[in-house]
């Protein structure tokens, strides 16, 4: 695995270009990865299910007969399939389906946005620290260590106190904590990547460090990063549930999967549907992300199988 090592990126001009011209109709490593991913049934099903959930979360709330925050005073604790509430109502007579869809939307949005925040900060930080090395690396990674030692909840409360309570802030708060692990992974990868021949070649050709990081290091990092992202999203969704449970996350009448479950667990003997349906959606969502993450890891880095 010398010339065909996984470090060859689709866009890298050093080695891949020559390889492409050699084969008339070549397959890039990404094509291989995609084929491997789609051969993994669990991952394929997960991609489809997750796609459906995302569509439901985006479109669904506009299609339900009741808004998620409408209190229906005559329909308190209606069970599933009775009346026009498909999966029942809660103690305030609010339609559970509408709340479930809006909760899914909030949870997915928090998951994706916070993960994106962590991705941007983490990759930039880790790549720079790893590539530049030396004193700067030491300094940057010690900052990461210090932030690591800060208790998560304490950090969130500090943010809330400083900037006031804000829905957006929660995305930032979670993302700003999640990037630490990302930065470490990226730095480690960068350290090994920068020893590779193609980086040396680029350096010899006079490419500036910023160009090397952007063109050669980061694209080759994508494998482990993508895998880690799929694992971060569920972690973030769980973190959001936890914050909301403490009253630091979303506030009534807005809801999230975690909030719905914690409320549902309280009333489970009286209104089991309030626990069952959100739990199913939460479990399915998290499993989809995990299967996709597993599938991606196997597909992108077959050595690890």
């Amino acid at each position, binding site marked *: 695995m010398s010339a065909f090592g996984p470090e060859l990126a689709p866009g890298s001009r050093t080695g891949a270009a020559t390889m492409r011209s050699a084969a008339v109709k070549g397959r890039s490593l990404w094509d291989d990865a995609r084929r491997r991913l789609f051969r993994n049934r669990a991952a394929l099903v997960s991609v489809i299910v997750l796609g459906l959930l995302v569509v439901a979360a985006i479109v669904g709330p506009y299609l339900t007969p009741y808004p998620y925050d409408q209190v229906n005073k005559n329909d*308190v604790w209606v069970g599933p399939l009775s009346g026009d509430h498909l999966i029942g109502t809660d103690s305030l007579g609010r339609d559970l389906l509408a709340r479930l869809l809006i909760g899914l939307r909030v949870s997915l949005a928090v998951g994706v946005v916070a993960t994106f925040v962590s991705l941007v900060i983490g990759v930039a930080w880790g790549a720079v620290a790893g590539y530049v090395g030396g004193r700067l690396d030491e300094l940057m990674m010690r900052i990461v260590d210090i932030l690591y030692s800060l208790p998560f909840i304490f950090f969130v409360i500090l943010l809330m106190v400083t900037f006031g*309570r804000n829905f957006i802030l929660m995305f930032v708060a979670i993302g700003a904590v999640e990037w630490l692990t990302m930065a470490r992974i990226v730095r480690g990868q960068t350290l090994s990547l920068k020893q590779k021949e193609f980086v040396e070649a680029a350096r010899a050709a006079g490419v500036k460090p910023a160009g090397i990081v952007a063109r050669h290091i980061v694209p080759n990092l994508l494998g482990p990063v993508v895998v880690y992202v799929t694992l971060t999203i569920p972690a973030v969704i769980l*973190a959001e549930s936890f914050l909301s449970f403490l009253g630091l996350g979303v*506030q009534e009448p807005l809801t999230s999967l975690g909030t719905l479950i914690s409320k549902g667990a309280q009333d489970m003997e009286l209104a089991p549907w309030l626990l069952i349906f959100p739990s199913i959606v939460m479990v399915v969502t998290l499993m989809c992300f995990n299967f996709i993450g597993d599938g991606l890891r196997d597909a992108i880095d077959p050595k690890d199988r």
Partner: protein
Amino acid sequence: MKTSRLPLIAMLAACAPLLAACGGGGEQKALRPPCPAGRLCLEYGNSGEPTTLDPQKANASWEFGIVSDFMVGLTDNDAAAKTIPGMATHWEQSPDGLVWTFHLRDGQWSDGTPVTAADFVFGLQRLFDPKTASGQAAQFYAIKNSRAVNGGKLPLSALGVTAPDAHTVRIELEHPWPILADNAAAPPMSPSPRHVVAKWGDAWSQPAHFVGNGPYLPKSWTLGDKVVVEKNPRYFDAAKVCLDRISFYPTTDAVSAERRVKRGELDLNTVVQSNRVNFLRRPDQMPGYVRVYPYVGAVFLTFNLKSVPALRDVRVRQALSMAIDRDFIVNKLFRGGQKPAYSFLPPGMLDYDGRARTYWATWPLERRQAEARRLLAAAGYGPKHPLKLEIRHRNTADPTLYTPAVQADWRSIGVKAQLLSTEVQIAYQSYEAGDFEVADAGWGGGSDAMGFLFLQRSDTGSQNYGGYKNLRYDALLDAADHERDLKRRMAYLGQAEQIVLDDAPIAPVYTIASKNLVNPNVTGWVDNNFDTHKLRFLCFRDAAQRRAGRG
């Protein structure tokens, strides 16, 4: 991964009851902390985390639940919360009702020093000392010069409480106050051990230093976990005290506490989520445990007049108040023994006729909503310029249930309200600091109308959360204080209540019912209007067996 660990625990916690439910009939073994052989230990679910164990500083019902047995005041309560002699064996008042003399029995502090009248004088001086900043002080302003002492205008020595000799406490009053003997049983009026406070300062009330004269003393306090109290062998009636150790747990999550009671992990819990009362009374649940009883307490929303300009307009306040559908909250949402409130004071006040009502009390909801919209429009709020508010509420069971209903009611009149859930002890601290727009608060205890009405006096201080000020109202309360004739006193108080309802610095929501979950095996828990339950009467039906070592 430090970030994912905590949520994972939260998830597991959320799933745990599910797993337990799926586990079939297999009873889980109760997780009671070990109890020394031959001793009796009770596990007490106490709804909140205390902020202090100092009897003069305690202010919340769950703090009183713990501290009220650390000290015996001049008088005491029996199991049904009736006033009985405490450290004073007997007492008399002067013919004009302005001077009370209490005669003390011999008693010891838990360190062996005798309890003297001077300790009572010192306790009351601490209560009114501005440095103590007690939230309860204003309820005892009937004591001579106490208001001035509490305001820092007179020295502590000017307080109308003296000790002519070691066994006599003399209390002078500003005005006749027939309920002094009843109030003397409350923790704020308890004695303080001078020698201990002198030695440790504010730290005296920590379990390591605490010295008391009551049946129980604090042994340890683990923040967020439990407060453990143990029997005081030097209490004068110690032979009759049954339990050796009581542990208080801050059970803010009423539903999980309910499951702990069911499993036998807790012997009782002082809060039940309202909408579960009927469910728990089912024969297959825990019917013998549920204790619902009327309580002289009210839940109301307070409007912050100090920092929210929109709420300074009485039309806005009335509109917000009348738009709340109290029947829905009480009869559909709670179904737990509460009553809708259209007056500030709950029913059942001593000698009080309680005829004051909001002027729209009998209107149907549609008419109230229409009127509310009209009032808001008149005040300059409408679809283009909606009123926006934040309701800060306690994170305990019932407030979490009813505030979204209020939010929906307000939305139907075009008011955009946000909810902010706050841990209960932090919530009250925020209210006292004026850090809220609309606050959900409860007030209870005491059968005298003044015990509620004083809350809205302009000079009450932090307990007047919203900073309401109406000099006519203050004057009526003053007039009531100085009125000897009971009927006329009550008439003044009635007028004062009507002013509060017309000015609407608060929106009454419902009157409370006390809801306790008590294992039928626990004896000595007597339901009463004040939800006061002295610990020394509690015992177990199978106490002999437990002592013999089975439990």
